[in-house]
């Protein structure tokens, strides 16, 4: 039975880690994810779990150790943020290409510089093409739920890919909120035991992990990796359905909030989606038909489903909590319009970069965006297609 509790996002993930009790967890502390290995270490010291915790000397080493442990046949995970993830970058690719179902809990924080500890998605987005499945959470509850679902997705025979479960640094990681926690037994049952088919510590079936691949074979390996990413779509949906059936909550690729008859939809990820939903309710009360599409799964990118969900509205605000420095908007500004165009959905799109390095995103900001979309459609207001919201001044002074 579910238990009502209150805890921060970091506490919620640590609680889930205790319940899953993975075999190995190498980690190196970095704000704002430090509490996760800290709390896990406490659980281990108190005898509440028996994960092999490896205090490594850097994130480069934590992911290397996770790669080694997972290849050996152990269920492995780690936690990090920001520059810690950047420092793992090389090993992220090694983990994914060796098809190692490692789970990484990422507490999103901006990348330097200026040096800053607060939230944006530049760390996760920087790793978007490393071959990891990426799932983003709106709140502590989803951070908890997504972590539990990560293992059955990653370890499924059709997938064999690592999964990054993300939550917003400080905004959810350090905010105490209500949460429903599930019984240890139910969580363990849901996640199941890990029985890898091929692993290094199996003398009966020797395998090589990470050998050199000549050009004659390398491209096929990459093709198969992409094929696994495509297959992960059905597995993510199955696991979400099983989670809903067992625990009564959750979404597949995204949540459609009041989108069915919406003229204007905001596509957004993470904690700001909650704020956007409140703004949508406020505007609905005033008669404006608006909705929020909260993207939960960013990798694999659910292009067809997004295009279908946005096919009937008049305009979409695509919200990026990350700058790509490409002169043409953030990561979602590239991927969402491509998804629309390739599925022959020709709706108006405005891309807003928001919330960088912890810049606050309020209901007023969200409401202003919905109103601007209406202005664009109804009054042909000219706006930059890729713009910023929440700057101190228009010139960014």
């Amino acid at each position, binding site marked *: 039975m579910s238990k009502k509790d*209150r805890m921060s996002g970091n506490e919620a993930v640590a609680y889930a880690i205790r319940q899953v009790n993975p075999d190995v967890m190498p980690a190196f502390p970095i704000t704002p994810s430090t509490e996760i290995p800290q709390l896990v270490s406490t659980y281990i010291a108190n005898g509440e779990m028996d994960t092999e915790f490896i205090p490594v000397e850097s994130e480069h080493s934590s992911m290397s150790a996770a790669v080694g442990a997972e290849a050996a046949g152990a269920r492995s995970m780690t936690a990090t943020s920001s520059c810690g993830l950047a420092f793992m970058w090389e090993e992220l690719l090694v983990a994914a290409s060796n098809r190692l179902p490692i789970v990484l809990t990422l507490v999103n924080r901006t990348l330097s510089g200026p040096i800053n500890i607060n939230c944006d998605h530049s760390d996760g987005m920087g790793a978007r093409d490393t071959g990891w499945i990426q799932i983003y959470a709106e709140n502590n509850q989803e951070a908890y739920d997504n972590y539990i679902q990560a293992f059955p997705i990653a370890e499924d025979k059709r997938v064999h890919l690592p999964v990054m479960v993300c939550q917003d640094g400080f*905004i959810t990681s350090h905010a*105490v909120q*209500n949460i429903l926690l599930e019984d240890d037994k139910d969580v363990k049952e849901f996640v199941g035991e890990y029985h890898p088919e091929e692993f290094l510590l199996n003398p009966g079936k020797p395998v090589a992990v990470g050998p050199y691949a000549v050009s004659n074979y390398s491209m096929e390996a990459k093709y198969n990796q992409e094929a696994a990413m495509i297959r992960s779509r059905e597995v993510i949906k199955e696991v979400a359905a099983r989670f809903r059936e067992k625990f009564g909550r959750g979404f597949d690729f995204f949540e459609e909030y009041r989108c069915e008859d919406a003229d204007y939809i905001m596509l957004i990820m993470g904690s700001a989606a*909650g*704020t956007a*939903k*409140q703004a949508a309710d406020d505007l609905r009360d005033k008669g404006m038909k608006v909705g929020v599409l909260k993207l939960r799964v960013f990798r694999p990118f659910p292009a067809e489903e997004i295009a279908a969900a946005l096919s009937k509205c008049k305009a979409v605000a695509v919200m990026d909590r990350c700058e790509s420095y490409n002169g043409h908007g953030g990561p979602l500004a590239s991927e969402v319009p491509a998804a629309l165009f390739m599925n022959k959905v020709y709706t108006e799109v405005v891309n807003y970069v928001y919330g960088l390095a912890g810049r606050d995103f*309020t*209901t007023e900001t969200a409401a202003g965006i919905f109103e601007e979309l209406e202005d664009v459609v109804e009054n042909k207001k000219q706006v930059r297609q890729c713009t910023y919201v929440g700057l101190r001044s228009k010139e960014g002074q």
Partner: protein
Amino acid sequence: MNSKNIEIRWHGRGGQGAKTAALLLADVCFKTGAYVQGFPEYGPERMGAPITAFNRISDREIRVHSNIYTPDLVVVVDETLLHSVDVTSGLKEDGAIIINTDKTPDEIRPLLNGFLGRVYTVDARKISVDALGKYFPNSPMLAAAVAVSNVMEKDDFIREMRTSYEHKFAKKPEVIDGNMKALTDTFEALESQLGM
């Protein structure tokens, strides 16, 4: 003030426990069945620097994750902040502010940028030193926040806080009674201001 959908902003200095007080308030309100949110604003952390923490307490699920700009209640844990931080910024006209000071509300009001709403003062230093022998302002300020905001009944608050302290101070039970006294003394000290 609608006691079932209330936004509180805490102003303190790093190390004084304003963040802890906000988290304790979320904790104790949760026990009455409320939806709660308690979170600090993080910046370059250093002892003595101004910090802000926030609470939302509601009878409905809380989805907003922004800071609080138009609070119903402001709690100032350190009086010296009145000279450097605009503590009444956005504070609702029918809202309230509580300040840790040995001055009276009338003496403090001129420092509040023309705020016309309710002003309460609590001498948390005196209460804390009398009850605990040391200066920990967060217990008195937490009690004051509950007394002024009415987020929960006093008796429920006292009962839940005892449980909470018994858990928190399991290894130094000698401070439990002192902290409980700081809470009840604060309620008593505020009685005349609250017209109880």
